[in-house]
């Protein structure tokens, strides 16, 4: 989780929408999610096509009806035919419209479901270095925000776009059938609109990118300050913080206004063009009618078509800002999905066979970021069943040793072997399944106590879980909970005490019960009775297992078979507690500094009978 000693350089490489990915490619990929179910897609397209067709037929019918009206031979009876046809097509439009929009609604929601699922599943697969790069909160708010924006577009905008595109195609065909001369006039507008949209996207695109960048900047600032709000309050910086935020927000407001406006300008612009077209068709068509080249009714339907032809275009442009927004959100989501886990199984890597628990670090070098070596030439061997203690100053590399033993990161040089098998030659999952871990932060899930215990091993029986809880000294307090093992933990265990949470994580590791144990001692303080229970639990847990224990209190590892003293990425001393004390080196100083010169009184106390037992 921490990247020790990384100098303060702006190496923030969080997820950013890669602007290199073109708008079309991103939208295409998003569309891929939408059209994943072929049958549904086909149904939606067919019905929507029918819907758009019927919408296109309507003006023709109205036109024909007017032909009847203007025809001197027309009668109410012949009008009735068209009235009926209009009614029937109205019914068809209703049915087709309902089916297509309903189907699309299902497609859109399924697409969002898959997108969410893919994203979550993928994030789970990513290696820890991905999480090192950005705080969980930032990742979280970004993921939810981006999907939100996509959903906004999927709610109604997508239908608009699809319908518009289909309508344009159909109307074009219909116009050709009615009058090829007028169609020629009508499509004159297309290159103009295409040019216009190109022009606008050239202006709006960069403006949108700037807006996205400034939005990210504002969100980042707000995220950081809100998380550190207590510091701001404690150091009386509310005014300056407020002021700073107002400035950022104001800047965003201005950029955003510009971006939205340029994007939305395309709506009125295409509107004007379509009206111009309408006028041109009226003039040309009027001349044709006068010249008796086409009947009156054709002009009427042509006029209606020209409106129907351009209306969808301007409708697309009216929600152009939504399209751009969704594309930007999708680009960021896809950039997470495209992130490759840095630690990968080799091809056809076998599963690690059941281990006995021997661990060898063979001249291991490691760095989180290339060029900044964190561990240098770490070399040690643990026999099955041995208890290894790790100690040393903060940032010395203790946690790193654990991180690479579980293969959360790959090595730079050297090899780690478990029972003579190099860990990078086997499946990661098979390795981790054989290592029980108790992490520094007792993280529990909002689920029942029993399910939290079972978390360590799928398929563990209730009896096994309860037995583990008993071993970890957790059974007693669990029984005292209102619903015993079925008590639901809220908010990661906020309804039980810190010490109880620790005991549960120990019990959880006990359920896993493999031959290798990693324990990162909690820094939090619990009452001495609980502490004793925890220590006992740990003792039970470590029995018969090769154990690696990172100690924050040296007393935890005093009885270790071997203590490794880590400093600045190397093992500087090793041996039992007694050996190391006798050396009077680093460990000795570390140990003595705990007493801050008060050891005399301690020794004095020791002389008192019953002072300690």
């Amino acid at each position, binding site marked *: 989780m921490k990247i020790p000693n990384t100098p303060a350089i702006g190496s923030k490489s969080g997820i950013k929408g890669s602007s290199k990915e073109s708008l079309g490619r991103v939208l295409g990929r998003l569309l891929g999610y939408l059209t994943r179910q072929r049958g549904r897609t086909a149904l939606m397209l067919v019905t929507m096509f029918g819907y758009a067709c019927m919408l296109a037929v309507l003006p023709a019918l109205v036109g024909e009806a007017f032909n009847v009206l203007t025809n001197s031979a027309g009668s109410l009876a012949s009008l009735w035919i068209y009235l009926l046809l209009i009614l029937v097509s109205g019914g068809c439009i209703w049915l087709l419209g309902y089916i297509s929009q309903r189907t699309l609604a299902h497609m859109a929601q399924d697409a969002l479901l898959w997108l969410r699922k893919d994203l979550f599943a993928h994030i789970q697969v990513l290696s820890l270095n991905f999480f090192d790069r950005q705080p969980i909160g930032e990742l979280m708010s970004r993921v939810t925000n981006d999907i939100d924006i996509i959903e906004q577009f999927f709610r109604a905008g997508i239908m608009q776009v699809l319908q518009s595109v289909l309508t344009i195609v159909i109307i074009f065909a219909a116009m050709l059938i009615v009058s090829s001369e007028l169609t020629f006039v009508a499509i004159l507008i297309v290159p103009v609109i295409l040019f216009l949209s190109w022009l606008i996207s050239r202006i709006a695109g960069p403006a949108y990118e700037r807006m996205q960048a400034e939005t990210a900047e504002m969100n980042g600032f707000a995220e950081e300050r809100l998380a550190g709000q207590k510091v701001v309050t404690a150091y009386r910086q509310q005014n300056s913080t407020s002021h700073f935020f107002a400035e950022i927000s104001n800047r965003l407001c201005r950029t955003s206004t510009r971006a939205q406006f340029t994007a939305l300008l395309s709506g009125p612009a295409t509107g004007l063009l379509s009206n111009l077209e309408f*006028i041109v068709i009226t003039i040309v068509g009027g001349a044709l009618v006068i010249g008796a080249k086409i009947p009156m009714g054709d002009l009427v339907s042509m006029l209606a078509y020209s409106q129907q032809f351009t209306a969808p275009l301007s409708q697309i442009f009216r929600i152009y800002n939504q399209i751009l927004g969704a594309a930007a959100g999708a680009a960021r989501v896809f950039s997470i999905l495209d992130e490759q886990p840095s630690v990968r199984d080799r091809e056809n890597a076998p599963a690690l066979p059941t281990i006995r628990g021997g661990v060898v670090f063979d001249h291991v070098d490691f760095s989180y970021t290339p060029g900044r070596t964190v561990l240098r030439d770490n070399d040690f061997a643990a026999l099955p069943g041995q208890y290894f203690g790790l100690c040393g100053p*903060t940032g010395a590399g203790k946690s790193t040793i654990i991180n690479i033993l579980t293969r959360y990161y790959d090595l730079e040089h050297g090899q780690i072997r478990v029972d003579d098998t190099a860990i990078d030659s086997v499946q990661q999952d098979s390795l981790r399944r054989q290592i029980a871990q108790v992490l520094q932060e007792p993280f529990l899930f909002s689920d029942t106590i029993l399910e939290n215990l079972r978390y360590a091993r799928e398929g563990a029986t209730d009896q096994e879980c309860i037995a583990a809880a008993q071993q970890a000294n957790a059974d007693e307090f669990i029984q005292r909970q209102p619903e015993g093992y079925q008590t639901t933990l809220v908010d990661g265990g906020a309804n039980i005490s810190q010490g109880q949470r620790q005991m549960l994580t120990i019990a959880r590791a006990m359920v896993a019960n493999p031959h290798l144990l990693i324990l990162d001692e909690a820094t939090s303080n619990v009452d001495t009775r609980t502490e004793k229970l925890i220590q006992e639990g740990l003792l039970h847990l470590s029995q018969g297992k090769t154990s690696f224990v990172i100690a924050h209190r040296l007393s935890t590892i005093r009885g270790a078979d071997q203590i490794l003293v880590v400093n600045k990425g190397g093992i500087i001393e090793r041996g039992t507690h007694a050996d190391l004390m006798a050396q009077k080196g680093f460990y000795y100083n570390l140990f003595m500094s705990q007493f801050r010169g008060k050891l005399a009184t301690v020794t004095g106390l020791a002389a008192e009978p019953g002072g300690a037992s």
Partner: protein
Amino acid sequence: MKQIKRLLAIYKPYWGWFALSQLMVLGAVFATLLLPAINGHLINNGVLAKNMQVIIYYAGWMLLAAVFGVVFDIVSTVIGVRFSEQTAHYLRKRIFDKVQTMSFGNIDRFRPSDLLVRLTSDVQNVKMAVLQAITTLFQAPFMLLAALVLVAIQAPSLFWIMLVMLVVIGILLAVYVKVVAPAYIARQKKLDRVNQVLREGLAGVRVVKAFVRQPFENHRFDSAAKELRTASIIPQLTLSWLIPTVLLALFLGIDAILYFGGTKIFSGSGFQVGEVLAAAQYFIACIGPLVMLAVALPMITAASASIERIFRVLDDIADVQDRPDVRPLDPQALRGRIAFENVSFGYLDSAGKPSSTVLEGINLVVEPGQTVGFLGTTGSGKSSLVNLIPRFYDVIAGRITLDGVDLREIPQDDLRKSVGICLQEANLFSGTIGENIKFGRPEATDDEILTYARAADASGFVEAIPEQYEGRVARRGTNFSGGQRQRLSIARALTLKPKVLILDDSTSACDVSTEAQIQDAIKDQMQGVTQLLVAQRISTVITADKIVLLEHGRMVAEGNHEQLLVSSPLYREIYDSQLGSGMVVSAGGGA
């Protein structure tokens, strides 16, 4: 609805602009409708009369209408965009400023992550809705109304058809809103659940990986996401019948116009084709705006929930407030004597009632210049106790005095100028290292920064960076390790030059020898400063003038290390469990 009204109240000073924008929308609508109207004349008097000049004449008028239409459209878009962006800016500022006035209790209740959602997603929702409300919401009603007027003028006998149509569409929309609004609220609950699973999955990623339970997590997320999908589709499904039904109603209207118009024409009542045509075209012209309404409505409904959540933040009242009778504090004359007199404390719930007692019957005097350590288990109330001194929270009973003055009689700002606290969570901010160190006293000199960085044992790693104190701190200080962040935040507290210094478990991520160094350096730098140390480790407080032992919110022992070893069995127990029975050292491997 009430919340929307409150939001609208914000616009009072700008209602002229709003009126203008709607006038423009109305103008654009009229221009759009004028086109078919003029077109009708053109066909009647030009095409049917075979007169090209009349065609050109009316085409000119159509052009004029089109140009005006686009100008109106642009103006209303400009106003819409400005309104929506200014609204976003305004709401962001209001929310953020509100947070700045919050006390710790308020912040605890609203969680930073939720506040961020208010500031981002919710504001975004409102913004989009405002834009839609201005540019499209009234377009369709205007269009229908304008069509109504035009039909009344051009073809009064067809007027009633238009009227019936309007009523039918109005009813349909009302039904839609009624169905969809509760559906959005139900959906929000499911979304919250998805976010909760997401948060747990991300925050617990180490545990998930450690036990290889990705499939399980995926399964959990899937079921939450599926429920969200089920809830989300309801508004969309409602929309999928609404639009076709509105269209169907429109076709019926066209049919009616043709029928009644046709009957009149055939009966030879002198009814013109052009009039019937115009009426039909008004109907068709209404389709576009009605469809756009379908885009606008879901956005506006979604936004009303956001508005409500935003107002919940804005309506919040700070727990701790300055009383009108506060008297300024003279920092020069301050000695730094702190006294707790029978203090009880509990965190307030959202109703403003203490939920449970965290501290009870605390009586304690800290003399000027003394160093007092607080020891106890997690949850024993140590942190709560020291957080009362800068008045982050108010006591429930009893009082705390600084140099004999009740804290509640001192302006918060003055108090915090003299009481420096290094909070448990070492939050750094993006900027330079120097800026972070002088965060609380921006006027601090470079020399001071250097001095205090050295005292906090931060100078070593800072000076190893090429840019030194100009080096960048990434967002949230993620480019520093936990121990480094702690040391920088200690330097930040020291730079305040406070009269009372509180270190709330600020060296937990540093090893004991570093901690000892820092403590010695602080002692040198901060002579005469009252120090309060909260600690998990006994070694942190072992040299303090006084150690206070807390258990379940009560003081159970008080005294220095030597005294407590003798007088307090609990202290001895803690000492034993943490430092081991010290004599084993000399007893060697005998254990």
